[in-house]
């Protein structure tokens, strides 16, 4: 009886309330992907409406029920879908799912620590995230429907249930869920920062850290700086909605009534929102860039080019990301002088971004590239980062933004540069570190198939959106059929929707591969990709404390791939030298 009880407790603390970073990482990964799948399904459903407006679909009827009488999505519920798709993808999958998974998995393993600085806070971080996810999902089922003011929830639309039904209970739950989410994110970020600064193993100076760790570290810093501002923005909105304050509301006549609110300004909300909202782009992007740096170098069997420049450009991006938020507000009526300042800071970001791209290209040059699915997704990321990045020069320029602001040009731009890049980075990370997460290998052939279908569909979906935008088509329209001007666009929309449907099914290949490999995949060797970083010196099986015996000491940077002596022979006899191998007698340390 007592042993039985003990076992039960073991299960509970091993799998549910675990304080082990590896288990928490798995929890983030699986929850993140489940949320991501819901977000993906939502987008596929509303793409049906955009491609074939007003047509009845059985599957829509089946899945959406009262949101879609006779299989046609209602206009305000279309907006709910768009809003929830954005919220779930940006925050739940690409922030918590991506950062939560890989920061948790890799920070202790790559810096040489037994666990996070505080296992307990780490556990809390996951459970806050979990509760937040559940509340967000519950909000789909309440009266009036889920929040529907766009993921940016600008008041007054988000503040007034009279303006749209989704701004009732659905919006309240959205705000509660996000408040809890922010607590989760802050607990996680603080933990990452403290761990990286304090728990590095012997010899692991900051300039010997893998770029993944730099990326996670800077991401956490941006998160700590900017997420609290969103929390206050959300709280003030709660006050305006429920307690009659007027932070954001003034001079409003809605539903046949003049409201009492006076003196507030919705512009204030926009400032507070984008103070997080823009850094958020880099909160999802930087981890993906860090992951790619590591994978491209490892799989090219070649040091990352410009290690210090990579760190410098990530720092520059992190800093600049906090002073560019106004470029989302060029046409809000904000003072034009302020617009000019934000144009300047925004376009500056192109410089460190360009440096990163060129460094990736040079890393591939004269490499010896082993094409794992992970490296394909990394190359895909460089491609999407370029494709989406260059159109940033259009949008960041206030004069040009006037005419493409809030059009499909923007939708195309940010889905490519932030959505695709981040999700490609996440896929790359999962394929690459799957052996570390589950101790098994994923199937490469399915991985290749997944990659090619995904990248083809991705560009099939998002590239044409630039053309829609340049034709003046606004985003968040239920249908374009009310404007004769946009009659031609139905062809483009059908084109996009067709690819969206294929893309959805392509992801099922990934989910199948993921589940099968986690349960039945071939057992992983300790260092399948012959990587240099410390995580590959840890045993395959997950043990508490990460290493049997002592934590390895670090003697070199993590990118000594294909290092040769004066005779052109590999120094170590193979094309890689792990970080815990001491320098040879005549070996020079790289001054990278």
């Amino acid at each position, binding site marked *: 009886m007592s042993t039985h009880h003990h076992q039960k407790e073991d299960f509970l603390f091993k799998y549910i309330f675990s304080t082990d970073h590896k288990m928490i990482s798995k929890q983030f990964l699986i929850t993140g992907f489940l949320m991501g799948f819901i977000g993906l399904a939502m987008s596929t459903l509303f793409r049906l409406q955009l491609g074939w407006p007003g047509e009845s679909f059985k599957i829509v009827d*089946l899945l959406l029920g009262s949101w879609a009488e006779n299989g046609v999505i209602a206009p305000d519920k279309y*907006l709910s879908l768009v809003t929830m798709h954005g919220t779930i993808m940006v925050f739940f999958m690409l922030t918590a799912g991506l950062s939560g998974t890989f920061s948790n998995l890799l920070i202790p393993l790559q810096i040489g620590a037994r666990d996070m600085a505080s296992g307990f806070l780490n556990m809390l971080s996951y459970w806050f995230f979990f509760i937040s996810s559940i509340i967000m999902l519950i909000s789909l089922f309440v009266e009036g429907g889920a929040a529907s003011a766009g993921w940016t929830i*600008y008041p*007054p639309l988000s503040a*007034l249930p009279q*303006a749209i039904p989704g701004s009732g209970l659905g919006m309240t739950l959205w705000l509660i869920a996000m408040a809890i989410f922010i607590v989760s994110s802050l607990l996680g970020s603080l933990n990452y920062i403290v761990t990286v600064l304090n728990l590095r193993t012997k010899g692991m100076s900051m300039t010997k850290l893998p770029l993944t760790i730099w990326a996670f570290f800077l991401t956490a810093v941006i998160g700590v700086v900017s997420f609290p501002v969103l929390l206050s923005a959300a709280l003030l909105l709660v006050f305006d909605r429920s307690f009659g304050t007027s932070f954001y*509301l*003034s001079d*409003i006549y809605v539903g046949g009534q*003049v409201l009492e609110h006076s003196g*507030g*300004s*919705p512009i204030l909300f926009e400032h507070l929102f984008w103070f997080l909202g823009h850094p958020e782009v880099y909160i999802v992007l930087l981890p993906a860039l860090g992951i790619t740096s590591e994978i491209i170098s490892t799989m*090219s069997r070649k*040091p990352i*080019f*410009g290690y210090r420049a990579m760190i410098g450009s990530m720092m520059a991006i992190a800093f600049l990301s906090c002073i560019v938020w106004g470029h989302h507000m060029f046409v809000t*009526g904000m003072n*034009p002088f302020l617009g*000019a300042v934000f*144009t300047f800071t925004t*376009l500056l970001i*192109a*410089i460190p971004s*360009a440096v990163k791209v*060129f460094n990736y*290209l040079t890393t*591939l040059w004269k490499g*010896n*590239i*082993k*094409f*794992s699915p992970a490296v394909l997704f990394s*190359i895909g990321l460089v*491609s999407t980062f370029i494709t989406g990045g*260059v159109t940033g*020069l259009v949008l960041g*320029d*206030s*004069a040009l933004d*006037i005419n493409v602001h809030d*059009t499909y040009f923007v939708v195309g731009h940010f889905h490519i540069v932030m959505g695709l890049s981040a999700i490609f980075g996440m896929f790359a990370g999962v394929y690459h570190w799957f052996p570390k997460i589950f101790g098994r290998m994923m*199937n490469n052939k399915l991985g290749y198939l997944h990659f090619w279908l995904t*990248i083809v569909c991705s560009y099939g979906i998002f*590239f*044409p959106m630039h*053309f829609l935008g340049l*034709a*003046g088509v*606004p985003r*968040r329209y*239920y249908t374009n059929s009310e*404007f004769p*001007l946009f009659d031609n666009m139905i062809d483009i929309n059908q084109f996009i929707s067709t690819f969206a449907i294929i893309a959805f099914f392509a992801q099922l290949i990934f989910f199948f591969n993921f589940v099968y490999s986690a349960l039945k995949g071939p057992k*992983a060797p300790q260092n399948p990709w012959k990587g240099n970083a410390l995580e590959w010196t840890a045993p395959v099986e997950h043990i508490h404390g990460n290493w049997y015996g002592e934590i390895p000491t670090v003697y070199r940077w993590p990118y000594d791939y294909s*290092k*040769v002596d004066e005779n052109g022979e590999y120094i170590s006899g193979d*094309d890689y030298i792990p970080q815990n191998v001491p320098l040879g007698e005549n070996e020079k340390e*790289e*001054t990278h």
Partner: protein
Amino acid sequence: MITTIIVLIILLAIITGVQFLKIAELGAKNRGELIYEITEKDSKGQSLMVFIFLFAYMGFFAWQIWAWGGWLLPVSASKHGVGIDFLMNLTLWIITPVFIITHVFLCWFAYKFAFSSKRKALFFTHSNRLELIWTTVPSIALTVLILMGLTNWNSTMTPVPEETDHILIELTGQQFTWTARYAGKDKVLGRSQVTLIEGTNATGVDTSDVNTKDDKLLKGEFHLPVNVPVQFVFRSLDVIHSAYMPHFRAQMNCVPGLRTQFNFVPTITTAEMRKITKNEKFNYILLCNKICGAAHYNMQMDIIVESQQDYDKWLAEQKEFKQ
């Protein structure tokens, strides 16, 4: 019934997948290989795919321009818009080559340097010269773009000076309709306030204000004379809207509690634009471009640009707001 069939198909697909993977694993075992090993053949095959992708992607890009390029917005119908279009084209001429060249390098390197056991990768950690080049070149290009952008932005956003001959129009957005108000002969708009909304006075115009008397309120469409500066001020009665007039390269949000402004000089009449676009039914439009509620997708007004003569005639026919 259909649901059952779908569930069955999914189940069958999963079982097939599992069997397929098991066979593949057994096959690899028989050949004495590890199934997860990335062979030289894999790398060669995938690198070739990347190479093919380069051509497919660039081909797709070109095809889209060919197929859809003609559907983009026609030439700018406003004076400042010509400057914006020029800057837009310049930017596109800079970013398109960057986009193509970096993709050529990316895919070419990936193709050329696929794994071979006979080759060693080059140990190449950094080069100050290279890094200096690719920090400086983008910086110079950006300086040009920033300077041109800011010049353009400042001139676009400067309101029409009082002394210049111009028309003053207030656009009011509310769910889900627009109202245009012309300032009338005195060129001053009467005061307005949401608390004054009552009966037919749907936008809350202050009837006691002497400036209100000659104001003209319009729904459905409004007219502009060609080549005369138009100063717009924007209001919203409920949520944020955005007054977007794509053909004039004009957009400004309408924010409750705040008066925003934008101005432009229309340069092409509706009749001329119908010839340019070869579309008899062409009309300039004002649409809402900020999510504002369920019928956001249908909040519009037509804009007619015509000669001063026609405009004067039209305006004279419109009722003044006398009460």
